[in-house]
């Protein structure tokens, strides 16, 4: 499965950012999310969810193999990560995020929590073939 992004349905509420951090860090802090909503205002006036598509390029580039394919997600293992930043640089769509208080990059592990809270259909779960 994967998360399908329909950017024209995104309203910029950032509930996805909120649930992401509460789920992974048990904290209220949207800046620690592995998803970000990029607003494009005043024109054209739309929001763009920016989220990992699990392409695996980061895993290939990781010098210590801290990013493992588990099921359909490339999961970053914090205990193996040296926070060298190579994956962040390598990401072709700039969706590996960082936060000064977190010792590793912030990477989507396909937990799908964001799709549970999205109420507009901007983030939905689909089978990989869809």
């Amino acid at each position: 499965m994967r998360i399908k992004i329909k950017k024209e349905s995104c309203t910029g509420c950032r509930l996805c950012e909120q649930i992401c951090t509460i789920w992974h860090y048990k904290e209220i802090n949207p800046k620690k999310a592995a998803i970000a909503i990029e607003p494009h205002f005043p024109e054209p006036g739309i929001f763009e969810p920016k989220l990992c598509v699990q392409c695996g390029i980061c895993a290939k580039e990781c010098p210590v193999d801290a990013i493992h394919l588990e099921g359909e997600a490339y999961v970053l293992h914090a205990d193996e990560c040296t926070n060298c930043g190579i994956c962040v640089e390598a990401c072709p769509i700039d969706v590996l995020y960082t936060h000064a208080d977190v010792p590793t990059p912030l990477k989507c592990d396909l937990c799908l929590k964001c799709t549970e809270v999205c109420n507009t259909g901007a983030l939905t779960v689909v089978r990989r073939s869809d």
Partner: protein
Amino acid sequence: MDGFGGTTLRINLSTEEIERTPTDPELARNWLGARGFVSKILYDEVPRDADPMGPDNRFIVTTGVLTGSFCPVGSKVGFGCISPATNGHADSSMGGHLGPELRYAGYDLIVMEGIAARPSYLYIDDDTVELRPAGDYWGMGSLELEERMKKDLGEDFQIATIGPSGENGIVFSCITHDFGRQAGRCGVGAVMGSKKLKAIAVRGTKSLPAHDLESHWNLTYDILQRTKTHPNMAPWQKYGTAFFVGWSNERGCFPTKNFQETYHKDWEKIDGERLVEDCLVSDKACFGCWMNCGKYTRARIPGKPDTYQEGPEYETIALVGGSCAFTDINHVAYANYLLDNIGMDTMSGGSTVAFAMECYQRGIITKDDLEGHELRWGNIDDFEHFVGMIAERRGVGDTFALGTKGAAEILGQGTIAFASQAKGMEFSGYDTRWYPAQLLSYCTCDIGAHHSKSWTITTDIELGRDTIEGKAPVVIYLQHIRPLFDTWSCCRLFWGELDVTPEEHVESIRYLTGWDITLDECMRVSERVWNLNRAHYIERNGGPGRRFDVAPARHLDEPIPDGPAEGKVVGRENFEAMLDDYYANRGWDRNGNPTREVLEDLGIGYAADNLEKLGHLGEPIPGGIPKVRGQKLKPKAM
């Protein structure tokens, strides 16, 4: 302190001193946030003779206990000051993302005083707090400046700005954020401008500490799943507030031609359906909201540049669209853009232009006053020109820069009769002549005429629109419960529209803060705020209080000429009787002065001492004050 950012900032703009203190736990518990903080700080700190536009007024930026939390929907930020429109307590709030960002930067409250030596903006990046020169930002439009500052500072900063209107001290200037969210009312933008503060930019990367995060989240998660299927969800997501235009017209309460009429025969050309069909660009939500009532739109008018704006929402459609008699939704949306960018509240701004249009209709102002232009109903070019005259205070624009009451006092000629305002602030978008409880709500409201503190159109329908009986206690109840959301600093609509109960909000606060707090305690805070604001108003303006609870003559004497509410009017006798009933139910004397008994009961006996010194303390009520002030609406049995 769980549930709080933890830090209060004190900034003296004159000396550029910036002081950080831990947020006072007692202030937090007794006043809960935003509107409550504003009430207490203004009462304690602002000299009673201070000019609202002078250095001694405070300009407060504040969050509340729920801001930035997971409780639906802690998106709000509040602004407070003594209002230049009413000379009393002002609190005005807006959604968007600024409030949460402040909390994530660690701040609950910012209290500013003095006046900056040069135009400045406040820059906050977590622990870095600086007053920076505004440079060429000064003079820019609100929306243009937000775009510019996002480019200069980064997209992840949240920005609030004022426009030229706020710089020039127009009393109904607003503060704008997120390309279309406004703290519109009370002239908070004028006070921000008087401080020479052009903008506030905030970035926060910290966590908001929570006492029991799991319970806090689980509660919201359940609410989220439950409300997704709520019947009101889909219509709200599609149309937002704009759809109530039709209903309001059919109920005979839609302000038309400066409240001369209450039914706009062309309402279908300016309603929510037209907005969505003709102008919608995207749906837009505040932080953490899954109901997205914001409608981001594009206005297209031949011969004018396309404009992008959020809205117009109901109030703008009513007070710009209806009251200025527009007949094309693109014109209303364009007017919305003009006011947003120039930095005027679309409600008071729309109303003030409509008032001027009626003055023009009656020959009280003429082309000679308007630089050779006209000011015709429903004419967008006339509207645009006149708004420019006000913003730059050119000619007669300088008179209307004072709002309808201030302008009427200068114009004379009986114009005060059709200035639809209370205490110097313009009515919201509901005519009151068939809605006596709404008239009472406007005229007793502590910030001037505003529906957000008490909206009773459906109460009037339930209890009967031709009676005043039983209205006052319901108005009082609403004046406590509705502003409570401005005190918690979260959106009221999940309560009103999606059946999320105030008790659930309180449960959320308990998980967030660890406090053993109840809804009753919160309601007492809200009543405390209301009474302190009343005492403050009397202390600033003299007594007795009743002298200020005045309705415009049009709404008392002038029957509605046509439409569904034809012939309706409240009448002076009824209005005075409602006031009597209202004061009695509040535990105030019949002069509208709060009594010692009620002030002490609410823990603000010091306000009684101050009123007593001034000779405006309410006379003791024989038999004592009511134990419970205010009463929830009990719908009539069917």
